[in-house]
Structures are given as C-alpha cells and as structure tokens.
C-alpha cells in the first residue's frame, strides 16, 4: 500500500509546468511537447496502476503529507484521498487530458508561445488533479482556484487581443464570485465543524441525525454558488461562451471535459451535506434544469461553432446539476464521464474543422466539408449522435438515466423531467444544425464573406462575434487556404474519443435496459446517502411542530423498468424530433430559418442576443459599481470628504493663524495696548485666582 504515491499524480504535471515554464522558451518545440506529454502520460500511467490495484485497496485510501495551514484550532493538510469517485475523475482527467495534449501538439504546432501553452496546460493538469484528489475542502479549493488560474491564462493565451484578455479576466472574476460562496461555505463549516476534512465532516453529519437543513442548507447553498461559478450555471455562466477565445484544445479540455465539471464533482463529493439540505438540492435541480433549457435555446441560433458548443456545454452541465438536485449523484457523474468524451470530441473535431478551413469559426461560411475532412466528419458524427442521445451512443445512457432519476425523484418529478426532455430535443436540434451547416450543402467560404456575410442576419452582432476569428493561422492566406485534413496527431485523439463516445456509455447501461448499471454500483459506496433526504412536507411539518425530522436510511428507490423504458422511448423521440427539424430547416428547406426569423423578430433577437444577459449584468452590476466607485467613493468620499476634511482643518488652523497674526500690526502703541490688556487680565486672574477650575483636567 505504501507504493501508491498519490501525490505524484498531481506533482508530475507540475514538474512539467516548471520545466516548460522556466526553460521552455529556450527549448525546441519537439522537446517542449515531449516534456508536456511525458508529464501528462506519467500520471495517466499512475492512475492506471491505481486502477489496476484498486480492488485490493481499503477505501477511502487517504494519504497525508505535511500540514498546509495549521493553527492550534484549524488544520488543513496536504492530504489526498482516493475512492471510486476520485478514480473515475482521475481517469477522465488524465485520459482525456492526455489525448488533448497529443492533439495540441498538432494543433498548436505553428503558434507563438508554444512552450507557454504546454506549460499552462500542465499547470492545469496539476491543479485539476489536486482538486480531484483533495482530501479536504481547503486543498480542493487550491485546485478549484488553480484551475481557474490556468483557465485564465489559457483563455488569455492570445493576450495581444483585447477580447481574449478580457475574456480571461471575465472568467476569473466570475469564478471569484463563485469562490466567494465557496469560501463562505468553508467559513461556516469551520464554525460548525472545526475541520475541513471531507471524511470528518461526513462522519460528524452521520453522527448527528438531528442536523437537518439550517446551517447545512446555508453551507450547501453557498457551495452551490461556488459550483455555479465553476460549472457555468445560471447566474454565473456568462463567462464560458467568452472563454472560447482560448485555443480550441483548451476549450475541449478545460471548458468542456474537466474543469467545468468541477462544480458537479464538488456537489457529489459533499453530498453528505446536500442530503441534509433538501432546499439546496431543490435549488440545484432548478438551476440545473433552467440552465439546461436556457442554454440550449441560446444554442439554437449561435453561428460561431465554438460558442455553440460552449452553450451546449452549459446546457449539458445543467443536466448534471439537475441530476445532483435529484440526488442522483452517480447519474451525474456518469453523464460527466460520457460528456467528457463526446464534448471533448466535439471541440476537438470543431478544432479540426477550424484548422482545416484556416481559422474560420463561423458556421454560416462552412458547409459541405464532409468530403474534405472525412475523419473529422465521421468522428464528429459520432459525437453528435452521442450528445443528442441516440442509443446506443454513450450520451443516451447517461442522459436517460438522469431523466429517469429526475422523474423518479420525490422533489423533481414530471415537470423537471419534462424540461429535461424538451432540452434534449433542442439539443438534438442545434447539434444537427451544426452538423448540417458544417458538413453538408456547399462550402460557402469565399472571399466575399469579408464584405458581407452570405446569410445576412444581425450584422452588428456578427461584427463582435466575428472579431474573434483569424488569429491562429494568419489572415494573410485566409481565403485561398487549401482545405485539408488535420495531421495524425490530431486525428488519433479524435478517433479514440469517438470510440469512447460510442462505447463509453456501455459501462452504465441501466437495469431496465438489461445492463445492470455497473457504473452506478461501482460508485455506490461514495454516493450512498447518509440519511434520507426528507421530503419538503416532512421538513416543514417538523419545523412547525418541532418534532424530530425523520431520518431513515435511504430507502432504495422503487425501480420500475417499464416506466423507465417508456421514458427512454420519450427521450429518443425527442432527439429524433430535433434531428427532423434540423433536417428540415437546414438541409431540405434552407430558406426557412430566415423566414421564421423575420416572422418572430422579437423572440428571434432575444434568443440571438442570448437574452441580453451580458448587457443586463453590465447595466445592473458593473456600471453602477464603477459609477459608485468613481464618483461616490473616490471623487466624493476620498477626495471630497477625507481630502477636503484635511484641507478644511488645515484651513481653519491657518485662518486662525492669520487672524492672530493681525495682532502683529507693527505699531508699538498697539503692542503696548496688548501688553496692557494682557497685564490687566493677568492681574485680575491673580487677584481672583480661579486655579481650581483648571485643575480638573479632562476627567
């Protein structure tokens, strides 16, 4: 057991980061990529080794190293924990991470700052693995913030562009809003538990069945705030679409497969708290459902291929949130897993497309690419089918499980299920839209597109969106660019991921479909409840009557294979409907979208402008804050009151000085006058002598 050395898993990428970060600018590109790959592959191998010996371990396996923050009353160590959940996450992070590293070697080959890119990527791996392996909240927070930092650096990789730098900043600050919640949750935990160790906290909760709601709800809600930041949920999701300013592998790795799922991971990891906070679970479910639907609708009209995928990611993360809200933690993680495969694939494939046509990201100028880049086309097709939820692709199983769990959940119920179902249809629609626009029809890329876009929609919007393109490969040979398939270093990961996207779901085929839900059972030790999540009625009755809240062990949810099969049928139907619509609008009747747009102008522009959420945030929060700071605080208070107050006092002193100076008229006679009056005053004082009054001092 001594030989596990979990610490090596995060530290190896860190070494890679240090090597590339400190020396990379002097090394040849080949060496840089070798270093990066070696230090990503090594943790993967370690994880595989762990996987290999996993069944022999007593779980959770905890490895403690030095104390990190230690006062006599608070201890947080560099401690790593390994359990089933961790293992899944480790496999995802290192596996997908390694593939994306390989992909990047090809994708970034011609970029300036090659070494920097790989250094950051390794840094990200370090933090992500720390986050996953952390044994306590504080160390998790290290990873939590660290991945944010890596994300910041990578989004702003093309920092010479204002938009990229701004997007990085936006991501970091919005994540900080989430971290604010996370920190407060930590503080509350310290107050109530005196420790930040997951195991200790879960243990204490288990020992106190009377703890229900109350501060646990507060903690849970604050954690949710943190999760919404990292996992791009309402209300903090706005950074993710902008994050597409980063290089595409980054989008795939960080903003699709791994980092953004940290919120879900965290909720699952701390589900002991959430289980006792039904209100918080409810909130999670609602946020998840709302985000899933909302983001999906925005996805309908996106024209930038990466942005579309970004909204798709938000939407899919919403699903995972929804699952968490329904206390279906293993379903959430299952979807996390499959989503990591197919969404990474989608991004990488999209990157391959962009790569192929010379840096263009606007789908409206693409088309008919399937013949030019067949491998990309086919792998992407796998992904599209997976995300749309067609059996037997991976996405089907995970999404289906979520919907079934939501339907079954006492608080979720049919309504949230319905939302999920509609979202599934919408997802299918926009994914096939992407598919058709990109790969079918005719290539619309032509010199003309610089002056006016072929599909004339909102020009103003396009301007802003469009300013993002053309950075990778140089705009010089933009339109004469030869459309070509990507190098094998990029294709290999695509193929591997495609296989995973297809087959990745098979590990979790539910009972109802004859699979036995191996994945769910594997995670069972981690996700099992620490106490029944009582229903709202139970809690409210208990709160009114003061009676103890009933806490039985989690009763196994009634499984109803028939209903589940019906539900699965519904979701497949929804996906088919979406495909059909997309087929109609973008293949068979391509003139229809414009007509529909013209028809319902208001709704159209509302969705097109992403419900103006960015603008609303700017107008309601950012602007007022800046105005408050600039005019009220800085101009008014600091310079006016504090500075002016100082000036005022100085003025009073100087003014009275000036008056006193008037005594000094220069005239001897008036001086004698002052002497005389002074003498008289002194003599009167001496005669009447009221010394005792002065003696009292201030007391």
């Amino acid at each position, binding site marked *: 057991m001594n030989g596990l050395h979990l610490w090596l898993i995060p530290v190896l990428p860190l070494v890679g980061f240090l090597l590339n970060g400190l020396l990379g600018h002097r090394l040849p590109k080949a060496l840089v990529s070798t270093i990066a790959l070696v230090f990503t592959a090594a943790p993967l191998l370690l994880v595989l080794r762990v996987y290999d010996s996993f069944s022999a371990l007593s779980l959770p396996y905890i490895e403690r190293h030095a104390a990190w923050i230690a006062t006599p009353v608070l201890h947080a160590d560099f401690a790593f924990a390994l359990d089933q959940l961790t293992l899944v996450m480790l496999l995802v992070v290192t596996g997908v991470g390694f593939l994306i590293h390989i992909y990047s070697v090809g994708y970034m080959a011609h970029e300036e700052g090659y070494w920097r890119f790989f250094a950051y990527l390794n840094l990200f791996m370090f933090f992500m693995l720390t986050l996953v392996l952390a044994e306590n909240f504080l160390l998790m927070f290290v990873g939590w913030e660290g991945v944010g930092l890596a994300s910041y650096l990578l989004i702003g990789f093309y920092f010479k562009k204002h938009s990229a730098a701004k997007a990085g900043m936006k991501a970091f600050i919005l994540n900080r809003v989430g971290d604010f919640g996370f920190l407060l949750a930590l503080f509350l935990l310290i107050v109530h538990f005196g420790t930040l160790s997951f195991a200790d906290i879960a243990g204490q909760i288990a020992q106190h069945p009377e703890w229900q709601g109350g501060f646990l709800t507060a903690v849970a809600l604050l954690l949710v705030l943190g999760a919404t930041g990292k996992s791009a949920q309402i209300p903090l999701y706005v950074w993710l679409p902008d994050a597409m300013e980063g290089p595409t592998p980054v989008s795939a790795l960080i903003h699709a497969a791994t980092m953004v799922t940290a919120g879900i991971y965290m909720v699952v990891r701390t589900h002991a708290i959430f289980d006792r906070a039904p209100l918080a679970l409810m909130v999670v479910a609602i946020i998840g459902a709302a985000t899933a639907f909302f983001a999906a609708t925005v996805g309908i009209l996106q024209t930038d291929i990466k942005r579309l995928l970004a909204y798709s990611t938000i939407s899919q993360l919403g699903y995972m949130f929804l699952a968490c809200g329904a206390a279906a933690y293993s379903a959430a993680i299952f979807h996390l897993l499959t989503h990591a495969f197919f969404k990474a694939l989608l991004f990488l494939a999209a990157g391959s497309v962009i790569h192929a046509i010379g840096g263009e990201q606007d789908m409206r100028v693409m088309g008919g690419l399937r013949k030019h880049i067949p491998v990309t086309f086919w792998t992407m097709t796998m992904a599209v089918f997976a995300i749309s939820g067609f059996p037997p692709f991976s996405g089907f199983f995970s999404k289906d499980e979520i919907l079934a769990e939501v339907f079954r959940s006492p608080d979720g119920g049919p309504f949230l299920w319905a939302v999920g179902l509609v979202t599934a249809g919408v997802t299918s629609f926009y994914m096939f839209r992407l598919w058709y626009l990109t790969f079918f029809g005719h290539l619309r890329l032509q010199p003309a597109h610089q002056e006016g876009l072929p599909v004339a929609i909102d020009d103003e919007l396009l301007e802003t969106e469009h300013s993002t393109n053309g950075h990778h490969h140089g705009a010089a040979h933009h339109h004469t660019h030869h459309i070509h398939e990507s190098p094998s270093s990029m294709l290999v990961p695509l193929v591997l991921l495609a296989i995973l996207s297809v087959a990745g779901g098979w590990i979790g085929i539910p009972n109802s479909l004859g699979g036995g839900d191996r994945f769910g059972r594997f995670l069972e030790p981690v996700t099992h409840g620490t106490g029944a999540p009582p229903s709202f009625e139970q809690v409210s009755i208990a709160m009114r009557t003061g009676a103890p809240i009933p806490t039985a062990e989690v009763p196994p949810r009634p499984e109803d294979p028939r209903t589940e099969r019906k539900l699965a049928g519904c979701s497949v139907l929804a996906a088919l409907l979406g495909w059909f619509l997309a087929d109609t609008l973008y293949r068979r009747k391509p003139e229809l979208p414009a007509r529909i747009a013209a028809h319902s102008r208001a709704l159209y522009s509302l969705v097109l402008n992403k419900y103006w959420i960015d603008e609303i945030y700017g107008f309601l929060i950012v602007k007022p804050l800046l105005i408050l700071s600039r005019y009220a605080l800085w101009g008014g208070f600091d310079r006016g009151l504090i500075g002016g107050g100082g000036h005022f006092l100085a003025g009073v002193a100087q003014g009275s*000085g000036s008056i006193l100076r008037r005594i000094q008229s220069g005239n001897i006679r008036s001086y004698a006058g002052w002497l005389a009056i002074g003498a008289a005053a002194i003599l009167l004082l001496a005669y009447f002598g009221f010394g005792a009054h*002065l003696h009292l001092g201030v007391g």
Partner: protein
Amino acid sequence: MQLSRILPEVILTLAGILIMLVDPLLTRAASRKPVGWFSVLAMVAAFAASVWQLSLAPGTAYFGVVQTDAFSVFFHLVICGTVLVALLAAIDSVRPETHDMGEFFALILFGTVGMLLMTSAVELLLVFIGLEISSISTYILAGFRKRTGKSPEAALKYFLLGSFATAFFLYGIALTFGATGTTRIAAIAAALPHSSTPILAWIAVGLILIGLGFKVSAAPFHVWTPDVYEGAPSPVVGLMSTAPKAAAFAVLLRIFYGAYPAIQQHWWSLFWILAAVSMTLGNLAALRQQSVKRMLAYSSIAHAGYLLVAFTSFSPAGIAAAAFYALCYVAMNVGIFAIISHVGGYDDQLWSITDYRGLAYRSPVLGGAMAFFLLSLIGIPFTGGFFAKFYVFSAALQSGMFALAIIGLVNSGIACFYYLRLLTALYAKPAEGSPVLAVPRMSLTLGLAILLSASATLLLGVIPRTSLDLAQRGASAFFSTVAVEKPAPAATPVLKGQ
C-alpha cells in the same frame, strides 16, 4: 573666598573691560576676529569656572545677595555654553567692515554677566540689575545693523516695550516689598505666610510675571518678538532668543518657587493660561509665515509656552523639566540661528522659506544640520527637543494637568506643519539661479558652532542622563533650601468624577 561665588561673572567683566581697552588701540582696518576669539576664550573660562563652582558647597555670598547652588550652576552652564556658540557663529557672520566689532563682543560679554547674575541672585535688586544689564545690552545689539531701517526699529521696539514691561516688573517687586518688607527671596518666602497684606503679593506675582513673561516672550506679552527677531541681526537673534530667555526662566523659577510657594494657588493658574495661550498662539500664527526668522520667532513663543507648562506642576520634577527644557531649547535654537545668520547673510538676503529651497543641495552639512535642529524643535526622538517635551509633559501629567498636556501635544502636532514646510524646502530642488546656491562656504567657527550645538542637541536626546541629573540636583537643591509644602491641588488624582 566670596569671589569664588561670582567667579564667572568676574572673568567676563574683566575680559569685557580688556576688550574695551584694547579695541581703541587697534587700527580701524585691523580685523576684529582676534577680539572675537578672545571673548570665546573668556566664555570658555567662565564655563570652566562655573563647572568648578559645582565643587563648592552651596551657599550665599556678599551678605546673602548671590547664591551658588546646582541650580545656578546649571543655568550658568546653559548660558555660557549658549553664548559661546553664539559668539562662534558671530565671528564670521557679522560683517567684517563693521567697526563696532570690539564693542559688539564686549557688549555680549557684559550682557552675559547680567544673565549670570540673574540666575544666581537671591536678592530682587540684583535680579533687577542683572535683568537690566542683559536687556540693555540686547537692546543695543538689536540695533547694531544701523544701515537698514529695520534694525534700529527693532531696537526701538524692543527697548520701549522692554522698558514698559520692566516697569511692571519693578512694580511687582515694590508690592512684594510692601507685602513682606524685604527683597531677599528666602526672606520673602519666610515672611509671606505671616504677611498682614498678602493681597499685595498676589498682585505682585502677577506684575512680576508680566515683566518676566515679556522677557521669555510668553503670550500675550510676546508682541515684540516677531518684529525684533526680524529686524535684529541674525547672530544677535541667535543670542537673544536663547541665553536671556534661559536666564529669565531661571529667574521665574527662582522667584516663584523660591519666594512665593505659599501663594501657589494664585499663580499656577496664571502659568496654565500663559502656557496654553502661548503654545496655541505661537503655533497658529507661525503657520502662515513666509519669513524664516519670523516663523522661528513665533516658534519660540510656542516653545516658551511648552516650557511654562512645567511651571504648573509644583514638583521637583517640574523644575527639573523646566530647566532641562530651557537647556534643550537654547541648544537647538542657537544652532539654527547660527545657520540662519550664515545662510541668510548679515543683511538677511535670504529671508523667506522659498529662499531656503534647496539649501541641502548647496551644502548637505548646513541643510542637514538645519533639518536636524528643525526636527529637534518638532520634538522627534533622539533629539533634545523630544526629551524636553517628554519631561515637561510627563511632569504636567503627574500633577494631573491632563487638558494642558493634550493642548500642548496637539500643538506640537500643529507645529510640525510649519517646521516641515521649511524642512522640506531645504530638501527640495532649488530654482535655477536661486540665491541659495550662492551661499558661501561654511567657515571654521561656524562649523564649530554648529557642531557644538548639534552635538549638544543630539546628546541631550540620546543620553540626557548627565544634564538631567544636574537639573534634578538643581531642582532638589532648590526644594531643600526652600522648604516647600506640597500644595493641595496637585495631590488630588488626575481624573476626578470617576
């Protein structure tokens, strides 16, 4: 040997007479610097004689007219040291073509005799005569720069107002005499409790305070100070803002603590008010001054106020604090005026704060020394000014003068504003062609003067022990020769009403 009790005075008198005898024999063109050096020597001798006096047993001489004790020796040393520095600063600063150089030095020596007598006299008549000697010599010195209109005007103002105040002082002595029938300090103290007309003594202390308050330029009797400082030659200002004040403070201590302890209730409130008014008025009025000398005049008013704070605490600690403050004050003030008389020039070519901009660029030593003195005037630790303030306010607080201490320390906060204006000006970049760049090189004597005063100021701030011990000895000598009962108010705790 009664002469030993007045040895320093005798030495200085003889030296002064010698100068007067020799001076006419020198040709008009001959440099008077040797005369200056001679007077420096005489002053050193007087200083040494004072130190020697320390070995004498305390006692009186000439039928109880003078008394040598630690107190008088302390002030002897203060005065002799100060005049020594002032002389050194004057040797090169007074314009060489002035033909009255011989008289100049003689007057300083004679004036010093007066001051020394003031500190050791225990007979009011001798105090009065000493005061007059020092005053008259200062009147004359103030008018020494006859070519400009300002100097004689300064002399006139000083003279007329000074005589005016002297009349009050004299009236006070007369009433004291009326109340007790004597003018011997110890006898007054003895007779006062039995006086049938103590009211006369109440008024007498007021009148005496007016006269001496004028000399130490305490508000509201300060009015002459700014004008006279501005008009008088800077070397003279350096002298008259220090030594005579120290002497006057010594007299104040001697008279009030020696002769009038019995009616302390009637005079300590006067000091309270004088102190508060002086500090506040001096500092506030200094804020807007442009002229360096006038600013320092107001500053000296404020410093008189700080010093008077010590008078309110009726304790040996208070006397020691006052004596120590006087010492520190003269050390730094004589130093800063030594610099001003060199930099400003005999005719005050540089007079405003703006003119001093960049002095530290021209001469780091002069600028640094001036900055150091300013810091001491502010009361920064490790300078004499700090410990002086510290002892004074400590004594005041120990006697429960909470309000006065707060007034004083807030004042010292206000004061840094104008000191800093000058200080930062010193270190600012000078304007092109600024006259400050033409300040001549420092001469040996000036360097010596600055060195003496600066090292004194520094030592007082770092190891105040020796001088403080002497001051405390003086104070306790005082309290033992004059048996004083501790008055009632001081014994009550600070904060009543708790």
